[in-house]
């Protein structure tokens, strides 16, 4: 019974993990760039939410998601326009990798200096502890809501990409950056919007994770690795695959913690690594 509960909670956690990976997958799918700083931006948005919650204690902390999402979008837009766009077109695949890694180091250490290395979390009161009982199983409300939100965001993103003109432009730009210019599209501007969207999605994941567990300026690496593992497990270009990947990781994580309470992310990482060994076909080299 305990195991079933753990599995279910793991699946719910997986929804959150999938959300972490969604933004990363979006940027990679469109620009072929893995934004190493994605984790740090998530942590940054969590810090912002905590700060805002402390500044306005009468406002329900989760409402702080709204300004944080808006700011994250803007930050993503600027980040892309000022920095990442410089290397997206580089023939050297190492360039965006190293560049975004550099940005992650800068962000991480600025956060340490500005916010301090103390552990924080976003307190939302009773909601974080609330749970319901379904046939003897204890299911947290917050994780349930998080999974619902993740699924909703997935659906929304799919809708935008498939059924709007913006989505069409994004897909076309991802396919052929040069030819799309012949339709009057500026690829650089498309990338700006995509990165903004990516960081906005990351902000949601980052804030929700901050509700669930604590964080420090150093938590970005963890988040990046999870996001990455989700994207890779799910297979390139498949958002629903990412959701499944997230669920698998979430289950591995919680089952692992039940067996081995101090293991941290070890079992999630092990699952990822085993998949690398067993099913490399989904994980082999990116398109040229």
């Amino acid at each position: 019974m305990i195991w079933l509960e753990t599995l279910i909670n793991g699946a719910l956690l997986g929804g959150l993990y999938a959300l972490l990976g969604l933004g990363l997958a979006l940027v990679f799918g469109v620009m072929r760039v893995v934004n190493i700083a994605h984790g740090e931006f998530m942590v940054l948005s969590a810090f912002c939410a905590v700060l805002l919650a402390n500044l306005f204690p009468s406002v329900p902390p989760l409402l702080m998601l709204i300004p944080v999402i808006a700011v994250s979008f803007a930050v993503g837009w600027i980040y892309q326009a000022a920095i990442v766009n410089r290397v997206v077109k580089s023939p050297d695949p190492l360039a965006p990798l190293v560049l975004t890694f550099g940005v992650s180091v800068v962000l991480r250490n600025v956060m340490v200096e500005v916010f301090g290395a103390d552990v924080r979390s976003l307190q939302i009161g009773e909601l974080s502890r609330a749970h319901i009982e379904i046939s003897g199983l204890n299911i947290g409300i917050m994780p349930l809501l998080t999974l619902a939100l993740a699924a909703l965001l997935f659906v929304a993103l799919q809708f935008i990409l498939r059924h709007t003109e913006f989505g069409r432009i994004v897909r076309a730009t991802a396919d052929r950056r040069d030819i799309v210019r012949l339709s009057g599209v500026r690829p650089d501007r498309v990338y700006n919007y995509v990165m903004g969207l990516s960081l906005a999605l990351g902000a949601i994941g980052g804030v929700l994770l901050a509700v669930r567990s604590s964080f420090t300026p150093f938590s970005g690496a963890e988040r990046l690795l999870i996001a990455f593992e989700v994207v890779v497990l799910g297979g390139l270009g498949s958002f629903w695959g990412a959701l499944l990947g997230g669920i698998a990781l979430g289950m591995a994580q919680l089952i692992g913690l039940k067996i081995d309470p101090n293991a941290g992310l070890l079992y999630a990482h092990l699952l990822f690594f085993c998949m690398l060994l067993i099913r490399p076909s989904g994980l082999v080299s990116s398109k040229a």
Partner: protein
Amino acid sequence: MPSRITLAIWSVILIAAVAGAPFVLNEGFLRLGTECMLLLTMAQMWNLLAGYAGLVSFGHQVFIAFGAYALFLTSGWLEINPVWVLPVAPLVAAAVAAIIAFPLFRLRDAYFSIAMWVFAEIISAFTMKSQLAGGTSGLPLSTSRLIDFDWFEPIMFWLAGILTIGTIAGLYKLMTSSFGLGLMSVRDNDLAAMSVGVDVRHNRFVAFVLSAAGCGVAGALSFLGNLYIAPLAAFDVNWSVYMMFIVIIGGIGTLEGPILGVIIFFGLRETMTGPLGLSGGWYLVGLGVLAVTVMMVAPRGIWPVLRDRIGVRLLDVHRTSPRPVATVLQKVSEGTAG
């Protein structure tokens, strides 16, 4: 390429400098010098992998840790002065690299980089759970009583010096050999390299194992100097950060680049934490900003820009074409027209 005589003279000067330094410098400077040289070796190893074999690793700290732990544990079990079991470090690191290459080499670019990082995290987690390796709090060097502390700093310095000079000399020889040419062609375009018969996988594999071995022994020496090893320090991703930034800022794919990078690295650190009195975090911020700026403005690093301005070729491993490029192209275009 510089003439043999120039190389020989420089080698003699460097060896003399390394040999004589412990008699001239105080302990503080000696330690700094050791740290510089070890970091330079690590950077050269990262450069070998990234600049020449085209693989960026965010998990190279795992080899530093393997080398260091191997040294501490072996020295402890055999109850020998750690200096005598130093070869264990590169061997263990190389073995780990050889094994992990099989799953990892299926991946390219970002996938490889992050998978290395995940691997490092996994090993780190296991180490922290292992009683044998001292768990989360780590291990002191159990055989430290066998060390003669009068000569400890000089010996560390000399070992670091031998390692660094040996590494650079070895890399120079390697890159000017046919293996090196093959390796550079792999970095530039592995499909093209394969079509002219270069064994891409083999070249990459050798580069990967060598870079692991180099980091292993440098890591072993580094922690030997502290007489203590702990997982948080050993598996710290900042090792990869330092290596990467040194190479990127200095000049990726060149032998001189990391040397320049190390000078800038330590210059920046000592200036910021010393006279400017800033904490360590700001130093990393400064380094990061510099690396990002270099990537945007001069992606090949500072050294190539300097080199082209001053016209100096120190350890250049580039070949020159036997015929001027323009004539070759003209012949090619004449051949394909009509």
